[in-house]
């Protein structure tokens, strides 16, 4: 199996563990990911805030390069990049005048034939019905699947899952033995692009999401997007300061949770890169007899 691949800038830096875990799971499944040659930044929130043509042209170059490389399907693990690429592709295919103008700007013919896959769709392919992958260590935790905004909206363009109560990640989590909770904040916004310029607002919005997941008994939040991860994980101190309380709930990329269930190690999946340690409350019945003592100790520590 082969797929085209667009990593996006954050996977080279703050979201390295998303790439590390995705690559390992893909390799285990025998899926070959071919990176789009000489790819550029999609322009992200900044471009569409300041300059419409730029926000379409930057993704158009990426899509044209994918077409040139003969890629039929391209996996775009970052939800923000996925959204920008899909929006640009939709707009350009709808509007022939814009397509002509943008082809001139990027000095390439834009066809836009490659089908874009987000990370959940990618994992459905890699870890689907006929997958060779076997669950070795069931991920037996109560999880809150947090989809965020960019993965499901606008539905007209992305045509992925249900925009208000998506289920695809929940299904993948059930498959690895997790127990996904029903909760109302699956597609709420974490504050995304205002993370640096208005950290106060991001702390408020992300805090509401953490509180909602914790209140309903989740032991981990499962995300698909580097922006959601950085706001819920890296911004944890800001959230706690704004909320006036502590939250210990870890935030995992779905690729990391699947990797753990497939028997891959925490280290190779990049879990040590999180700012919030990935530890779970240990339930007594799960503790193996010889480890019962240490399990009780850590359970005590979590209760504090």
């Amino acid at each position, binding site marked *: 199996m082969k797929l085209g691949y667009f990593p996006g800038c954050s996977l080279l830096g703050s979201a390295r563990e998303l790439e590390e875990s995705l690559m390992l799971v893909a390799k285990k499944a025998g899926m070959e990911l071919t990176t789009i040659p000489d790819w*550029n930044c999609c322009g992200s929130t*900044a471009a569409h805030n300041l300059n419409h043509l730029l926000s379409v042209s930057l993704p158009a170059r990426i899509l044209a390069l994918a077409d040139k490389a003969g890629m039929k399907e391209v996996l775009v693990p970052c939800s923000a990049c996925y959204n920008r690429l899909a929006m640009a592709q939709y707009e350009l295919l709808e509007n022939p005048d814009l397509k002509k103008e943008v082809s001139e700007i990027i000095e390439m013919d834009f066809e836009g034939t490659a089908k874009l896959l987000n990370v959940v769709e990618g994992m459905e392919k890699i870890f689907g019905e006929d997958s060779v992958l076997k669950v070795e260590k069931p991920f037996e935790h109560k999880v809150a699947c947090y989809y965020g905004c*960019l993965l499901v909206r*606008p539905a007209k363009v992305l045509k992925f899952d249900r925009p208000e109560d998506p289920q695809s990640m929940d299904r993948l989590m059930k498959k690895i033995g997790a127990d996904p909770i029903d909760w109302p904040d699956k597609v709420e916004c974490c504050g995304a692009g205002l993370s640096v310029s208005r950290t106060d607002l991001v702390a408020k919005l992300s805090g509401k999401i953490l509180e909602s997941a914790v209140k309903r008994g989740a032991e981990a939040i499962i995300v698909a997007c580097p922006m959601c991860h950085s706001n819920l994980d890296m911004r944890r101190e800001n959230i706690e300061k704004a909320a006036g309380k502590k939250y210990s709930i870890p935030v995992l990329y779905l690729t990391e949770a699947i990797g753990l269930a497939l028997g891959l190690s925490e280290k190779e999946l990049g879990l040590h890169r999180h700012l919030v340690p990935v530890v779970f409350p240990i339930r007594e019945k799960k503790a193996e007899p010889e480890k019962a003592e240490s399990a009780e100790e850590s359970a005590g520590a979590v209760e504090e």
Partner: protein
Amino acid sequence: MEGHPEDQDQSLMSRVREGTGESAYKCYQCGKCSAGCPLALEMDYPPSQILRMIQLGLPGLEEKALGSLSIWLCLACETCVARCPKEVDLPKIMDFLRQESLRRGLTHPTAKNIIKFHRAFLDPVKYTGRAFEVGLIADYKARNPISAFQDVLIAPKMFFKGKLSLAPHMIKGRGEIGRIFERAMKKESKK
């Protein structure tokens, strides 16, 4: 003149229609967008009121909409358009209003930092082809000295977790990217 009433003048209403293909007249002010907007409470005017200002097109109101903080707080999370019974593409209109506000020099004073951040994000993209997180933060702090001490505690943590790459990635097509920026800037400024 024939056609849509919005097409007959240079009001903000017709500029929006020209720039986005969206008509603010579609909105019947149900308020669903403002109810679902995650930041409506932080805005000076909730999203439905911004649309109302465009609909009315009275003297002063257009400038108020373009000078609002709301248009810069909008996260483009697309919740409003997902729930709008008339499918008004408000995020698209917000993008247009931001750019129009820059063109007319009407940006809200409190939005300056948000704009500085967007510009700091795009600069390394223009010269290297990709975003560069370390450079972005340094650049933003240089543009906005008040923020110098913000995040100083998180940066070393990120570094030791291997989350910061210290050198920017240079792509081969830097020349193309530079030209894409130049052309897009030139064309948009003329609109």
